[in-house]
């Protein structure tokens, strides 16, 4: 009976994915890169392999010319923890971190030439962790100082993912100012969201490091990292403990969470359901009985390789297609004639109203 009860509260996922996004560039936003890398480190430590993590960092802090400790990114002011590590695998770096690429990763509408490491190949039994950090406001998150993603677009992207069953359960964590506004508009099932601050509040950074010269981490992620350092792959800590991380006394802002779209009770959701990769296993009890004396079949592969003719270069590249490709559709602008007509109208009205004699003052 206990076995059945255990089964009922377990999540039905078979694999885990993580999408970790840092959206700020420039040296003084060191803390956002450190935030993302600390979550990356915890997630890798708890078992999710690089092939299942999409890491997007908008700027390079470790090898930044202003970094006094090159090849490191620290999370604590006494340089206790180097979250950069030895085996970081950044999938989208620098200018590749754009709203368009982020939405493409989530919805799967990626050009066919994208390599496997840059794709989110999740299926209906995947639990996905999405962590975003950067500068944000009420209802938007700034990407790279030049564009922004709104909460409506994010909610629509999650809905597109749900329609195609690209996730089983999704945990969304955001560490920005007014972060709670980003999860207000979600409407797809099986999403749990955490934010570092409510609407109208700012998320503050943790201490600065005088040696490096910038703030190293944001408060919320700092305490989340402390919390995650205690978790090991077999721990039974549940989500309610994660909700308690960073109370107002430590964080100054009020962290928020949203669980109404989630079907299971957060009490029964293990941290490792999202941050780790604990697989369901079954003992193999059946075997197939094989006849050992069977002769090998002729291996068909070498013959196939010889049969194909070497392709000529011109045939491989559709040159005509490339030359005659139409340029990508840009943003809509009002047509030029409209502006000219508008100005002609303005000038005509001006001179009709005030008399034509003023023309000589213009020239």
């Amino acid at each position, binding site marked *: 009976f206990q076995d059945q009860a255990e089964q009922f509260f377990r999540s039905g996922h078979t694999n885990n994915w993580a999408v970790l996004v840092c959206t700020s560039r420039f040296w003084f936003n060191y803390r956002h890169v450190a935030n993302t890398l600390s979550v990356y480190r915890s997630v890798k430590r708890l078992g999710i392999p690089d092939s299942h993590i999409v890491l997007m960092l908008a700027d390079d802090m470790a090898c930044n010319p202003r970094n006094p400790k090159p090849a490191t990114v620290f999370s604590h002011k006494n340089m206790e923890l180097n979250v950069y590590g030895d085996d970081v695998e950044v999938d989208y770096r620098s200018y590749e971190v754009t709203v368009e690429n982020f939405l493409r990763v989530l919805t799967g509408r990626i050009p066919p030439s994208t390599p496997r490491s840059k794709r989110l190949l999740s299926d209906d039994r995947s639990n996905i962790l999405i962590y975003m950090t950067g500068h944000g406001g009420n209802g938007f998150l700034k990407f790279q100082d030049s564009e922004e993603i709104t909460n409506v677009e994010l909610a629509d992207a999650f809905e597109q993912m749900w329609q195609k069953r690209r996730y089983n359960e999704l945990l969304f964590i955001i560490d920005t100012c007014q972060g709670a506004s980003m999860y207000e508009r979600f409407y797809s099932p099986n999403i749990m969201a955490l934010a570092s601050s409510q609407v109208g509040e700012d998320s503050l950074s943790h201490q600065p490091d005088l040696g490096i010269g910038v703030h190293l981490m944001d408060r919320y992620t700092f305490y989340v990292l402390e919390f995650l350092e205690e978790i090991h792959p077999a721990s039974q800590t549940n989500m309610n403990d994660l909700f308690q991380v960073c109370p107002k006394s430590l964080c100054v802002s009020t962290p928020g969470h949203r669980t109404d779209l989630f079907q299971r009770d957060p009490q029964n959701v293990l941290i490792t359901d999202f941050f780790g990769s604990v697989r369901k296993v079954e003992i193999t009890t059946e075997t*197939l009985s094989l006849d050992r004396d069977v002769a090998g079949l002729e291996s068909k592969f070498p013959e196939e390789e010889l049969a194909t003719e070497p392709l000529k270069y011109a045939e491989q590249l559709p040159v005509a297609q490339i030359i005659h490709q139409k340029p990508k559709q840009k943003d809509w602008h009002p047509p030029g004639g409209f502006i000219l007509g508008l100005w002609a109208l303005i000038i005509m009205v001006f001179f009709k109203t005030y008399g034509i004699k003023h023309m000589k003052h213009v020239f």
Partner: protein
Amino acid sequence: QVRLVVPMAVVFAPGSVPGDLRKPLPFRDVQEMEISVNLRTSVTSRYEMRYRSTTAQEEAALAAATAREADAALYPLQDTTLGSLTMYVVPDTSSLLPQGINVYVGKHRSALVRAGGSLAALQARLREVTQVMSFTASSIAAALSDRVPDGQLSPDARRNLKSSLGYEITFSLLNPDPKSHTVDWDIEGAVNRFVKPVLDKLSLVANFSVDSQILYYAVLGVTPRYDKESSSFFLSAHSLPHVINPVEARLGSSAASLYPVLNFLLYVPERSHSPLYIQDKDGAPVSTNAFHSPRWGGIMVYNVEAPASPQASLPLHVDVDMARVMEVFLAQLRLLFGLSREEVPPEFLLESPGNEGLADWELDHLLWAHTVENIATVSTTLTSLAQLLDKIGNIVIKDDVASEVYRAVASVQSAVTELSLGHLLAAFQASKEAVTSSERAFFDPSLLHLLYFPDDQKFAIYIPLFLPMAVPILLSLAKIVRETRLRKKEPTKMD
């Protein structure tokens, strides 16, 4: 609505016709059953049965000594189209079936059924057999798992591999202790002898690609415990989920293909941890010494015999017995696809498929599930694509996206038609085409809704620019109109 039609033939051997059979042979009968998945979706299964008596050749074949020989002799005489079934009813007293066995299911698409006295008992037995050999309500529900309301299906039911156009199979040999063991495995030979026949049989279902690798110094994530009584090491059942992760980071996968990967790992334990056994929940060692994870693959532990003399020189040369290994791996492959023989009633005897890996009716089982799953996926995809287009009115649909959608719709319609005619293979291929087209249409990179701005956003950008400019223009226009009207009235006034 989807109707699954199974053409069946029920052949009565002499002396097996039940007494209460009303109509004289041969005659046709149809049995329909509705499998309801949720409030709105249901799948109808329809068994079109043709009852007849045996021909002289079939009688001669049924006179064989054992059921297996009879099955082999009957094979050339039966209908071999995919999805069809043939049941041979033998008298209760027949010695063809061993004692206590009422049904013998052969390697192909036929079964030998004991008559069982009355017509009702026979029909109940026939229904059981057809469910085992084609599809059951739960296998259809598992295929349509996203439509089943949560809570009705246990979380374990959705574990089979999803229907995909291809699968990548990777065999890996893990040698954590190369100083003590030099492991040789003839993987290419084993793949040719044992794996290829199975994959050839499954080639109807999907494309398979096979690769292999050897990893050195790859350790499992869990330290095995020592058991003094048997002087061996063991991995307990609850530590198994943590074994895979450290290894998985090093497994790698082909960068070019997007197909799901099935990993089969053969682990040769270190000399200091040999022999290593896997314990099940009750603490007993598992006979296969292997475990598998749904939708991922399987791991088998291969113990190396301790050398005869303690002074044997290291490293020891190990020649892996590939046949034993492949027996386990291929069994795991079957389980990953959902072909389990565990839920069969005890009075059934299932013929082992041998080197082919799976019986013909098991292949049909897969095809039924995958066809239904493909049709459901296509309809969900196209519906959500239509909803997306409704929401963003000014999205531009390129010609090739439109043609893929048309092709998907035509293919899925043809798949449903073929299913209702009982042509399983044609239905499956049509459903595969439908899935390819619909996925290509849905995931086309041009459908990113970020590129299309809703009208309210356009107004929000241009109103603040043009409204202040427009105020003096409009006021001046009003002034002009008033002036011209006054001028027109003046001549009359002057009078």
